[in-house]
């Protein structure tokens, strides 16, 4: 399968290791990812906080470039980028007037014909679990993992086409296939505060704390994410959370594709495990005899 790939700014900045793992997984599974040439920022929350048209035009430019190159499917690994792209496509599909207006603003024709998929859905829904299972050489047996989806991959359902807004299972099934033990927990789709953690840290950190607390209460060894910002909040800020709440969380957090890469036999050096804040070393040691580390 061939996809236009829209990595988004985070995968070019604080989420480099996500990008690396995505590409390793794609290579193994025979998925061809072609980066959209000269892509720009989707505008994220800041654009749709500010101006309705801008929030649609920024993603539309990328999607129009992908269309111009003949792509029928666009893979988006970042949840925020995914949500913005999906909303843009839905808005343009719903209104021929808007389609004209957006095309004028971006100076290109955008027809909203291509299918936009989160990278999680590309792997979890389009690739086929049986196909993935064939490539698992190092099953993550015994790893009790909390699959964390956050907001933007699942809500609103009519835009994201998520399987369930309260208890999605796509990532859980995927993690099961690679041998891990996804746990049933309650904070799968609760918000991590996203970028609000920067301007209003006290607020955002409580949200992160509550997510970590619930995962820990169900005995999760680690948390898997499908969004670079969720990852950054849950991983980088654990230390800050512990300082603020007097807790002792040390829960390794992974991009879901990193766990897949591990199960496919790649070592931690192949991707960016060392870039994580919370060390996964002892966990991997216990789990797969340190082969990953």
């Amino acid at each position, binding site marked *: 399968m061939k996809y236009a790939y829209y990595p988004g700014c985070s995968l070019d900045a604080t989420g480099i290791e996500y990008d690396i793992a995505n590409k390793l997984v794609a290579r193994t599974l025979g998925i061809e990812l072609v980066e959209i040439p000269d892509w720009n920022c989707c505008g994220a929350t800041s654009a749709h906080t500010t101006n309705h048209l801008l929030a649609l035009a920024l993603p539309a430019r990328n999607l129009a470039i992908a269309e111009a190159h003949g792509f029928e499917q666009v893979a988006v690994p970042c949840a925020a980028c995914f949500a913005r792209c999906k909303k843009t496509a839905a808005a343009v599909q719903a209104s021929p007037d808007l389609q004209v207006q957006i095309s004028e603003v971006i100076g290109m024709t955008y027809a909203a014909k291509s299918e936009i998929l989160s990278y999680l859905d590309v792997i979890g829904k389009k690739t086929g679990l049986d196909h993935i299972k064939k490539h698992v050489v190092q099953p993550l047996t015994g790893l009790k993992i909390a699959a964390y989806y956050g907001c933007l991959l699942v809500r609103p359902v009519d835009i994201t086409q998520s399987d*369930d*807004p*309260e*208890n999605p299972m796509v990532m859980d099934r995927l993690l099961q296939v690679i041998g891990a033990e996804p746990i*049933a927990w*309650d*904070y799968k789709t609760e918000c991590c505060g996203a970028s609000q953690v920067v301007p209003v840290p006290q607020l955002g950190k409580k949200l992160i704390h509550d997510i970590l607390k*619930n995962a820990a*209460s169900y005995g999760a060894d680690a948390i898997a994410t499908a969004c670079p910002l969720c990852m950054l909040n849950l991983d980088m800020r654990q230390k800050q959370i512990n300082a603020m709440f007097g807790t002792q969380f040390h829960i390794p957090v992974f991009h879901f594709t990193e766990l897949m890469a591990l199960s496919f036999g790649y070592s931690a050096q192949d991707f960016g495990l060392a870039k994580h804040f919370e060390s996964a070393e002892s966990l991997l040691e216990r789990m797969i005899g340190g082969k990953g580390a």
Partner: protein
Amino acid sequence: MRRIGVFICHCGSNIAATVDCAKVAEAARGFPGVVYSADYKYMCSEPGQEFIKAAIAQEDLNAIVVASCTPRMHELTFRKTLANGGLNPYLFEMANLREQCSWVHTDKEKATVKAIDLVKMAAAKANKNEELTSSTMPVHKKALVIGAGIAGMQAALDIADAGHQVVLVEREPTIGGKMPMLDKTFPTMDCSACISTPKMVEVAQHPNIELLAYAEVTEVKGFIGSFTVQIRQKAKYVDHDKCTGCGLCETKCPSKVPNEYDLGLGQRACIYKPFAQAVPNKPVIDPLHCRKLVDNKCGLCAKVCPTGAVNYQDAERLFTDTFGAIVMATGYDLYPWEEIYGEYGYGRFPDVITGLQFERMVNASGPTGGKLKRPSDGQEPKSVVFIKCVGSREPAKAKGYCSRACCMYTAKHAHQVLDKIPDAAVYVFYMDVRAAGKAYDEFYEATLKDGAVYLRGRVSKIYQEGSKLIVKGEDSLLGRPVQVTADLVVLATAMIPSQGSRELAQTVGFLPDLDGWYQEAHPKLRPVETPTAGVFLAGACQGPKDIPDTVAQAGAAAAKVCGLLSKSQLETNPMTARSNPAICSGCGLCVAVCPYKAIQLISLADRDRYGKRINRTVADVNHGLCQGCGACTVTCRSGAIDLQGFKNNQILEEVDALWR
């Protein structure tokens, strides 16, 4: 030549506010055949009807047009007026100036023009109307009641007490429905079983009631006064004539499954009575789980049965019977909240239960012997949260309507928790407290005095932390998010029509409303009748109800049935289809389209144009079955079928009048 009188009704201000009635009356005087016209505030009132009668006599009228509301409302009223005034009632024509004009328009001038057109059309048809006469058909003096919950039992008893025969059909192995599952009933706190189980016995012993438990209605044919009904008696695998109900088989059966009657909180054997006071008080075998029936092993119950009543070869039985009237009393079920409530855990948390499960738990004859216990660990809950309107009043997620009984039973539950566990904390999340019944609000007040904490707001999320449930809501009166660490959460889930009720309605021959409740013929004036003549409604099948309302409605339905069965003959509707054999080609298209199976092809002895004897196939309408829908008349290619009262020339006259 017709001498038509036209009467324009103001319907108070319903029509007069939007239509200039005097102007319409004046215009009507110029229509062909109209010799008299007038307007009046309430044509349907006694002075209004007297006015029409007087005009018939004084003006020598022989056809009448009333322009008022819908024929569904008052066509019958005015036909009777004609009859009293000495005219054939079918010389009456009605123009609908309310539903089809004043209620849907705002521009008085244009509405008046339209009203004049509507009256012009009605007058044109009145010119062509013919005298019609009814015939009679016999009434089978036996009623069928479908569903034997408190509604069906009450209706059956009331009909039977009036001296009529009743067949009461119940699909479960026991009658009683949901009421005996309950512990106590609000607001009097009398024991539910103590007032419902004696009724069950009374039903079983009544000489005029034939009880068919574990049976279903599979086919209904016919019409008011004469419904032919097929009933399927499910296989019980126990001969109830031989069985003494000793219960030995139940104690010996080695297979146990969750008991539906306890909503999964308790277990039952595979040869079982749903509960100890079941009626009939004899067991049936569950064919899906019995080892003997599933893989021909075990057979213990047959071995221990002292009377040899167990019969593994038993099979279902079909039989038919004829009834004059049918009472629908199919009750309700609870919304399957587990399917939609992800934020409450999709049923994943064992200590989140429904109100009906609470009833079983708090019931002395229930699975815990009346002790409140957490299903997860059997501990006594010290902190209990009740959530109302789960699935009710939420059109975006489930149902838009209010389920009516939940405010009261939740107040009762809160009271019961505090009664049984005095040191418990009880929180009730509510939207409104709807306690409009007699002594209901006083009961709610008492629950507050007991110490229940009412919080106005919906709960957004329930999740588990260790062995506790965290319940997150908002106290919308305070305007602050609140959180309760709870041991047990009880959901007041929405009432929905009982499973299979939509299909049953189709079988009987009427349509439920959008939510699946059985639709009454008129919400105010015909609340216990369906649009299908001879079919009546009792209890929650018509909409969510508590026990007092259900019993009252069952009594009302019974009174209607008794009224019908007290007659030995019914007048038939003369507005039925007639086929003219002279021009019928016998193509049979009308047979195919008739929804009432009222038309059949018959062979007619005739002569061809050379005088030779031949047999021709022609359509023949059964006037008892025909409901006058007109589907055949528009299908008939040769124009052989015409509907009395709606003949083609009458309809065309109306259309032509519009352009004159």
